[in-house]
């Protein structure tokens, strides 16, 4: 039986632009191998509109599946997985 992938949660709410994007990229570089192998999933919670617009495009280019869920007013969850 396959083990379920570990969900790495990153909360970047309240970060000053452009840190939401920088912090996400930094986290990605930290867990890159596990993310690419499917062992881990990255869930980013943000209140910054450019994040939910740029991050999906950027990670889809890298070959990941990305879903964006609206969690409420000015709150989005971006789920990045292989």
């Amino acid at each position: 039986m396959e083990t379920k992938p570990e969900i790495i949660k990153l909360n970047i709410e309240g970060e000053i632009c452009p840190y939401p994007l920088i912090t996400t990229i930094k986290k990605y570089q930290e867990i890159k191998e596990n993310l690419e192998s499917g062992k881990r999933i990255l869930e980013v919670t943000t209140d910054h509109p450019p994040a939910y617009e740029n991050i999906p495009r950027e990670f889809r280019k890298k070959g990941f599946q990305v879903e964006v869920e609206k969690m409420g007013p000015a709150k989005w969850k971006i789920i990045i997985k292989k």
Partner: protein
Amino acid sequence: MIILSGFIVGLLFGFVLTRGYFCQFSGLSDALMFKNFRIIKATIWAVLIAMIGFHLMASLEIITLNPKPFFGAASIIGGAVFGLGMTLVGACVGGTTFKMGTGLISYFIAGIGIALGGLSAAEGFLKPIRLALQDTTKVMIKGANPTLSSLLGLNPWILVLILAVIFIWLLLKLRTEEKEPRPEATFFARLFKLRWSPALTGVAIGIIGMIAFVASAAAGRNYPLGIVEGYIPILKSFLTGSFTLSWMYLLIPGIILGSTIAAFVAGEFRWRLPNWKTAVIMLIGGFLMGGGAVFAAGCNVTHILSGIPQLSVGSIVSGIAIFGAVYLIDYFRFIRKKQS
């Protein structure tokens, strides 16, 4: 009564800024980090429309062009300090103002900083330094503030034509190759819920700029959109208790309300309090933006959206100083580290 048009123009401007998420600082970061030229394209559209619109209106004698001064050292230093302030606040003045409308208290704090820096430079302790710097390096051509036209000795329409060709070429070059699948959406959804395209945002801003020029001139202030210029009298009125309203004074609350309406309907409004560290950074960054803007005779809106379309040399130089500073700071902050 005509000054009420400032509030209405503000409402429209705030609404469009928020719908298009038109913050030039985040736009530059998007371009540098992700090659996402959305806001740069929107800016080119806005400048293109305003440039042609302003010159048309001037030829028809509906308005008189009024480019800002070129202060030499003050334009460059003021612009660079403004840019530094932007990197601390994480937004330009348009961005700061419309983000207030999304419920971010940190940007209200930045706004107070902008007003404090602006008032200090306009009428306070920084005024002597500002005047010394501005007066010693001011450049005029034939007794007027320089434009590309007076600088090169060319009819302005020739320059408008050349620049229009360059802008259109840039817009074509920056076209996104992979067309993103546009989701099926109603007209209401496109207007109020989905992010506006760069073209729609930019053209709308250009047209609002044209309306602003006519309305503001009628109210006694012969210039299109500006922002820091409005923060200063607002702070002053609270400090002195003397509430003299003006077109620019009313523009600011208009922008904030227009942004709030747009954010609310799009589900992008939420009250958010900053931590102490962020609050202090916002105040300092805002102060640098306000002070820098007054030294350079304008903020990024005054120069990029209103000054460059008038072919103002001062605005071109200040614009380069502002975004040159932001580019350099962000390059050393992020890009170099990313490469290593």
